[in-house]
Structures are given as C-alpha cells and as structure tokens.
C-alpha cells in the first residue's frame, strides 16, 4: 500500500489489520493506493520534463545571447559603415561648388552645404533659409518650394543678384511613398553667362560690321547693272551679276547668324493667332517663285491644299519662316524637277510635307542635319550653299510653337521629304 495512504489510515483509524476488513473495502483501498501511486508517477514525469525544458531553455538562452552579441557586433559594424557613408556623402555635398539646401517634407530647412553658406554669406546656419529667401527675393521661392513639395521640378536659369548670375533649381526628392523633401541647387553661372554674352556680342558686332560693306557691294553691283554700256557688254554684265548674287548670298548668311542669335536670346513667346495653314503656305510658295527663276524649277502645292483643314492657333510668322527656310533649302539642293508641298490629315495631327527632287541626303549627313552648322558632306557637292543654319532654325522654330520637324525620307539623287507635324492640340 502507498505509504501516504498507510499513514492516513493509521492516523484516522489506528492500526488496521487487512484481514479484519471486508473484501469490498480491501479492493477499494487497493484502488485508492494505485491512484496515489499513479499520481506519484505523473508528478515524477512532470518534474522530469520540467527539468529537461529548463535545461533546454538554458541552452537556447545561451545560444540567443551568443547570437545577440554577433548581431550587436554586426549592427555596430553596419552603423559604422553607414556613418562612414554619411560622412562621405556629407563630404561630397560639402566639397561641391554647387550650393545645396535641403528642406524636409514640410518645407522646413534641414541641411545646407558650405557652398551655399559661402554664396549667401551666411555664418549662422540657422539663418540660412531666411537669408536664402532674402538673397533671391527677385524670384518667388516659397511658391516654387510648394510646387516642388508636390513633385514639380522648377529650374530658374538666370537670377541676377549683386552683379552675379545664378541658376536655381527646386528639385523634389521622391521615393515610392511620395515626396520626402526638396533640394534647392544653386549654381554660380556668372562666367558662363558672361562668356555667352560676349560670344553673342561678337557675332552681333561682326555681323553688323559685315553688313555695311556687303550693302555697298550689293548696291554698286545693282547700280552698274542699270548702266546702259554695261547692259550691252555680256561678259561684264555676267561678272557684275555674279558679284550681286554672291553679295546677296553673303548677306543671307550674315542674316542667318543674326537670326539664330536673336532667336536663341529671344525670351518673347510666340504669338497665338488663328492661322489658315494652307493660305500661309500658298503665300510662301508665291513669294518663293522668284528664287527659282534661273533654274527652271517648279514650286507647287498639290491637290491636298483644297481639302478643308482645321484653323490652328499658332504664330503665323513662325510657320512662314519654317516654310521659307525649307523651300529655299530645297531650291539650293535641287538641280531639276522641283518642290511639292502637300497636307496630310491624321487622327491627331496635320502634316505638312515638303518634297523635293534634289540631291538627297546620305544617312551619315542625316545624323547632323538639324544640328547647328550641319550642312554635311552634300555641302561640298552643290554649287550654292548656305550658312548651315536653315534646318537648325526651322526645327528650333517648330519646337517653339509646339510642332516638330523631321526628315521623313531621303534618297541620293532622288530627293528628300521633310515633314512638319502640327498636332491637333494646337488647332482651334
């Protein structure tokens, strides 16, 4: 019998002799004793398992502590790396000659590099923002900062302050979750701008100085061609005609130079006026007729000009100038045949095609076609040539009015087609 049960029976019943009790009680006591024994066994099992798990726990805990140390070491290393990266980045920002100002996503000043402090003449960093706003008071910085905070990048190319010229860029800093700040970049562009200005001034002066002598040569050639004696002397007449033709050509080149310069400098926006493109182009065709007389070329508009076309809201002078440039270019490079203008209606645009039967443009020349001075190698093959600015001017003007100019196709000795695309968004 279980010893606890034995003790309990002894305590409450005194010495109990098993022989003296009934079989039923005996069976009952044995069952109770078994239960006690089972309980003991269960407790032993539980104790054992508790001991085991606590041992395990100690092991795991040890492991964890070890791992924690490794992680801590790693974190420390990474932090060090990050700090180093941060220091490097800061160094880069510091050593930049571009002034950098960082604002957080509320537009509040949070960082400025040395360059900006130098530019603004700030000694106390906390005064940077106020000084910045004061320094560039001629531009509406708060408005630009607000725009940058919603993702718009704004570039102010030229701000003159205290006889220096700066460019200021307001750049939103974005990640997937949105704008987290604004960077303001400030560059001192004084030297570039002054160089640019002196270059332009040089062109203006050179062109001006060339125009007077050219006017004299042209005028005198014209006067001589009017002279009765010269009129009768074919050889002299041809010579003077040549002087006249070439002085006009040089004047044209001088004008091109000046046009490009005026065009690039011009900050005026193109006018917005109702334009009937077929009418404007037909007028240009009529005006260009005298240019081809000596060569017997044709300049015509095809039947597409009778189609009804939308009215465009653009600057008619731009369209006119583009067409004149393209047609006179085509005349220069076309020996026989002529130039045909046609209009094409598309779903989202009207295309104006200028097709000539000229010398064509080789693939390698096509690469430089719209560049400044990009006359290419065909320049050497034709007798008449220009300043190489015609197509540059034309595509520049096209872009200004929201149109685009491309070479659609060209084949050597067959001809070329230029395509001016006027998007219907420009139509009335």
């Amino acid at each position, binding site marked *: 019998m279980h010893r606890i049960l034995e003790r309990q029976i002894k305590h409450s019943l005194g010495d109990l002799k098993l022989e003296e009790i009934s079989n039923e009680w005996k069976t009952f006591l044995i069952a109770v004793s078994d239960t006690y024994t089972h309980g003991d066994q269960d407790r032993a099992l539980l104790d054992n398992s508790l001991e085991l798990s606590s041992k395990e726990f100690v092991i795991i805990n040890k492991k964890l502590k070890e791992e924690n140390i490794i992680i801590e070491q790693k974190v420390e290393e990474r932090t060090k790396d990050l700090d180093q990266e941060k220091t490097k980045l800061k160094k880069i920002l510091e050593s930049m000659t571009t002034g950098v100002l960082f604002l957080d996503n509320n537009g509040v000043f949070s960082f400025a590099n040395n360059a900006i402090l130098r530019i603004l003449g700030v000694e106390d960093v906390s005064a940077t923002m106020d000084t910045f706003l004061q320094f560039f008071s001629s531009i509406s910085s708060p408005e630009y900062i607000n725009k940058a905070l919603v993702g718009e990048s704004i570039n102010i190319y030229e701000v003159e302050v205290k006889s220096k010229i700066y460019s200021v860029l307001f750049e939103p800093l974005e990640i997937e979750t949105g704008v987290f700040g604004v960077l303001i970049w400030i560059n001192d562009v004084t030297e570039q701008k002054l160089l640019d200005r002196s270059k332009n001034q040089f062109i*203006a002066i050179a062109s*001006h100085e060339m*125009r*007077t002598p*050219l006017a*004299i040569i*042209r005028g005198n050639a*014209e006067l001589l061609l009017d002279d009765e004696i010269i009129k009768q002397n074919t050889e002299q007449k041809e010579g003077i005609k040549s002087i006249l033709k070439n002085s006009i050509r040089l004047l044209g080149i001088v004008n091109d130079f*000046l046009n490009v310069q005026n065009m690039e400098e011009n900050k005026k926006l193109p006018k917005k006026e109702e334009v009937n493109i077929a009418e404007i182009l037909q007028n240009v065709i009529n005006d260009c007729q005298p240019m081809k007389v000596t060569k017997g070329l044709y300049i015509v508009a095809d039947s597409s000009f009778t189609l009804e076309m939308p009215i465009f809201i653009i600057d008619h002078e731009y369209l006119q100038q583009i067409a004149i440039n393209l047609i006179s270019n085509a005349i220069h490079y076309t020996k026989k045949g002529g130039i045909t203008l046609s209009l094409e209606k598309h779903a989202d645009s009207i295309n104006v095609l200028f097709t000539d039967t000229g010398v064509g443009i080789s693939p390698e020349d096509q690469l430089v076609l719209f560049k400044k001075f990009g006359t290419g190698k065909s320049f050497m093959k034709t007798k008449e040539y220009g300043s190489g600015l015609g197509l540059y001017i034309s595509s520049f003007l096209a872009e200004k009015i929201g149109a685009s100019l491309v070479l659609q196709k060209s084949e050597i000795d067959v001809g070329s087609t230029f395509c001016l695309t006027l998007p219907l968004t420009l139509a009335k």
Partner: protein
Amino acid sequence: MENTKSKILLVDDETDIIILYKMKLEKAGFRVSTALNGEESLVIAAKEQPDLILMDMKMPIMDGITAQKRLRADKETAGLRVVFLTAFSDPMNLEVDKDMLIGDGVLGFIKKGVSLEEFVDEVKKYLSI
C-alpha cells in the same frame, strides 16, 4: 510727283554708302544733301530743312541717336522727321534708350543691305507718312 522733289538729308560716316545712296536717290529724282556724322547733320538739317533725314546709327564724333535727341531739343529742327539707316538686324534690341528709337520724329528703320529698289520704295513710303 511731289514726292520726287523732296529734299533728303543722308547722314553716314561711310563715304561709300553716301555715294551709293546719293546716286540712287538722285536717279529716283530726289534732292540729296549729305553729312558725315551726327554733329554735321545738325547744322545742315537746320539750314536745309529736309523733308526726311536718313540717319546712320553708329558714327564717330556724334552717333545717330544723340543727333536725333539734339534735333528734338532744338526748336529749329524739332519738327524734322528721321528714319534710321542701320546695319543692325534688330535695332529695337540694342541697349539704348528705346524712346529715342520710336515716336517723336522717328518714323522707322531702313536696314542696310536691302536692294536699291527696296531702299527707294522705303524712302518713298516714309515720305508719304
């Protein structure tokens, strides 16, 4: 035609320009007097009272714009009309007093380098204003 008897004062420091334009204008029937700089033009303008002054802009001694100012300031010449004769492609873009380039006696510009026919047509156009 009344126009063709008009008196024109041609002011330019380039004698070649003077000779050329004088010849052409006289051929077209105008009476032409000349001056080689702004200062000279003031004296001749006062004396001759021309119907139109063709004034170069860039000249030594006295430039065209200063001469134009001086013409306005003198009551003897204040009523005379001036057309600037220039080799600048865009005179309105010059860094000079814009008021001196338009209005107040200045009718406009003739650009050097146009054909002689165009030149005479321009002169006639300005005379008829």
